[in-house]
């Protein structure tokens, strides 16, 4: 394995992702946890760029950082009165840590057993984004999932407004 700018970038983004995730689940200050979430989401966006999916990376930043993280932060600010006074983890946290460790070991074992050292089978086609866009509105491809996702978003929007209204 040679060290190239690509591998360095991968290690930085992986460190962002995993470090951010660790911060989200362990930090007692919820606001800081939200900041770590933003860091982790950025790391994932960077990984998408390295995986040659720039469209998904931009959507990741736009949707997660620009919308979801802002929503979460505002919710934390609005509900801050009881924030930080209580324990951050519940009584079953050792059990949870055990489950999580078993999950990580199992997944790691499967990954190393089945996919170790696999390299890409082919290059990404240059017109990938064009084909993605056309597939979204093609009746034979992904039109129905696309419409269902739109209806889901509409329902979520109406639901959120109804639930959160005073």
């Amino acid at each position: 394995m040679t060290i190239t700018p690509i591998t360095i970038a991968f290690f930085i983004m992986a460190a962002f992702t995993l470090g951010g995730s660790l911060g989200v689940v362990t930090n007692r200050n919820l606001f800081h946890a939200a900041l770590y979430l933003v860091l982790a989401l950025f790391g994932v966006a960077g990984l998408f760029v390295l995986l040659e999916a720039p469209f998904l990376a931009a959507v990741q930043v736009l949707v997660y950082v620009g919308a979801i993280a802002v929503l979460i932060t505002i919710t934390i600010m609005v509900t801050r009165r009881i924030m930080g006074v209580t324990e951050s983890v519940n009584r079953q946290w050792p059990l949870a840590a055990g489950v999580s460790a078993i999950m990580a070991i199992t997944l790691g074992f499967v990954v190393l057993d089945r996919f170790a050292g696999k390299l890409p089978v082919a290059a990404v086609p240059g017109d990938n984004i064009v084909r993605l866009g056309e597939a979204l509105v093609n009746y034979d491809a992904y039109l129905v999932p696309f419409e269902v996702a739109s209806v889901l978003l509409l329902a979520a929007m109406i639901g959120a407004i109804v639930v959160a209204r005073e």
Partner: protein
Amino acid sequence: MIPLHWYLLVAAGMFALGIYGVLARRNAVAILMSIELMLNAVNINLVAFWRYMAPEALNGQMFAILVFAVAAAEAAVGLALIISIYRNRETVVAEDINLLKW
């Protein structure tokens, strides 16, 4: 070129941390954040498999896009529920929201 299993290991670590967060955190917002972590880990896997196994197919990216839509919907409704519960019961601790528990 980076081998596939590096991405998958990062995603596995992220997913495991998300599971820990969902099971162990008390604050409902923190649980929601952990769920976002798990969704992101799944997305890394989807895109990595798309890139390494079938870059000509669109399924991997398309699934990732649908996961984005679901994550956005989930965050909006989940946070609205949390705010609503906070207004009525003055708490966002998941264990204290036990009205429907016997």
